[in-house]
């Protein structure tokens, strides 16, 4: 009888431990996914500001700050895709494809491409020539952002 109580207590401890570990991991993953979505939204906002400058609704200073932030946020991309964080934000429309991790070399190469194009965009914004900014903007959007979204992102089937 005493043995079984001991066993029961031990079992209970294990159970509590297990619950704790899982929930701790789950919280981490949830946080990473939230950070990931926030980072992408921040980049989207930055692109919007550059677009605003092109359309005449934002000034050059705002566009410069946005292009600078794009360069900074590109550096953070590997941080928001650590291994074991597959899955989508429940409020989001997209999920990373498994290739982000199975082809991490390819994934990081696309990120490098995007980072280079962000540098080119900042240089163009500083130069102030709207035609050049438009070219750099389209290039970053289509081949940087869009390049990754095509290869490494998929829509959540709802």
């Amino acid at each position, binding site marked *: 009888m005493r043995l079984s109580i001991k066993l029961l207590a031990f079992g209970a401890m294990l159970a509590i431990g297990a619950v704790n570990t899982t929930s701790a991991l789950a919280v981490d993953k949830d946080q990473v996914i939230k950070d990931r979505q926030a980072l992408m939204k921040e980049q989207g906002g930055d692109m919007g500001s550059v677009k605003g400058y092109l359309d005449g609704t934002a000034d050059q200073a705002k566009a410069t700050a946005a292009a600078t932030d794009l360069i900074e946020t590109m550096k953070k991309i590997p941080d928001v895709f650590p291994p074991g964080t597959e899955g989508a934000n429940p409020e989001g429309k997209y999920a990373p494809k498994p290739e982000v991790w199975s082809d991490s070399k390819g994934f990081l190469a696309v990120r490098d491409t995007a980072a280079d194009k962000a540098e080119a965009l900042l240089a163009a914004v500083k130069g102030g020539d709207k035609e050049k900014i438009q070219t750099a903007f389209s290039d970053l959007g*289509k081949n940087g*952002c869009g390049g990754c979204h*095509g290869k490494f992102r998929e*829509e959540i089937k709802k």
Partner: protein
Amino acid sequence: MARGAYLAAAAGCDQCHTDTKNGGAGYAGGRPMMTEFGTISTPNITPDAATGIGGWSETDFARAMRWGIARDGSHYVPTFPFSYFAGLNDRDLADLKVFLDSLAPVSRPKIAAPQSLALLARARAAIGAAIMTNFASPLPAPSDPMAARGAYLVATVGHCGDCHTPLTWLGAPDPGRYLAGSHGGLEGKSAPNITPDSKTGIGDWSTRDIVALLKDGETPDGDFVGASMAEIVRNTARLTEDDRRAIAAYLKTLPAKSFIKKK
């Protein structure tokens, strides 16, 4: 020829008829495509006599483009959007042929048509096509000339409904849900609702927003489309700014439909 080249770019003929992944020559076909009829390989549409469409008459070309019937009398699978191209006007069809005839002929061995085509799916599609020979648009053309130009680009040349209009059980586009979004369209991908419904469509998008998407693939929240639509943006980016505006003007005239979510 310039007109034909522009139309080919707008319709994106080269997207399917080029085996880009394996470095195939433009318009020489060979791109594998997953369809409900099995994986098919797109045909060579350069003017090579043996393996392409060299020597085709205008009638041969028109029959293929409007009815999906090859010169040898065989039928194309409806992955080739002939039901949309049925609405192309005679001049555009002629210009397209002049352009294709001007290409350098490329010899590319024909890949045998897959024998194990899903017969039922094919029969169903044939009935669907027979009921509705012109898939382009169930709506009357808008009276405003700009929107009418947009209608032609969206419904016929761009065959947007190929992905954005859901199919009925017969496999023909549902006329009551024109451009209202589809689950599992071409290559099993879903496509969003592009009617002006504020909640589930693009009702809140300005003309500028629509033009930005067609030009750079940028959505109003600064996101950039990838995958299937990115391929289409390669076509719409080649349009003139006026044509992109015409598309936006037309989309805004559509009746707003609510996107039906999958159960």
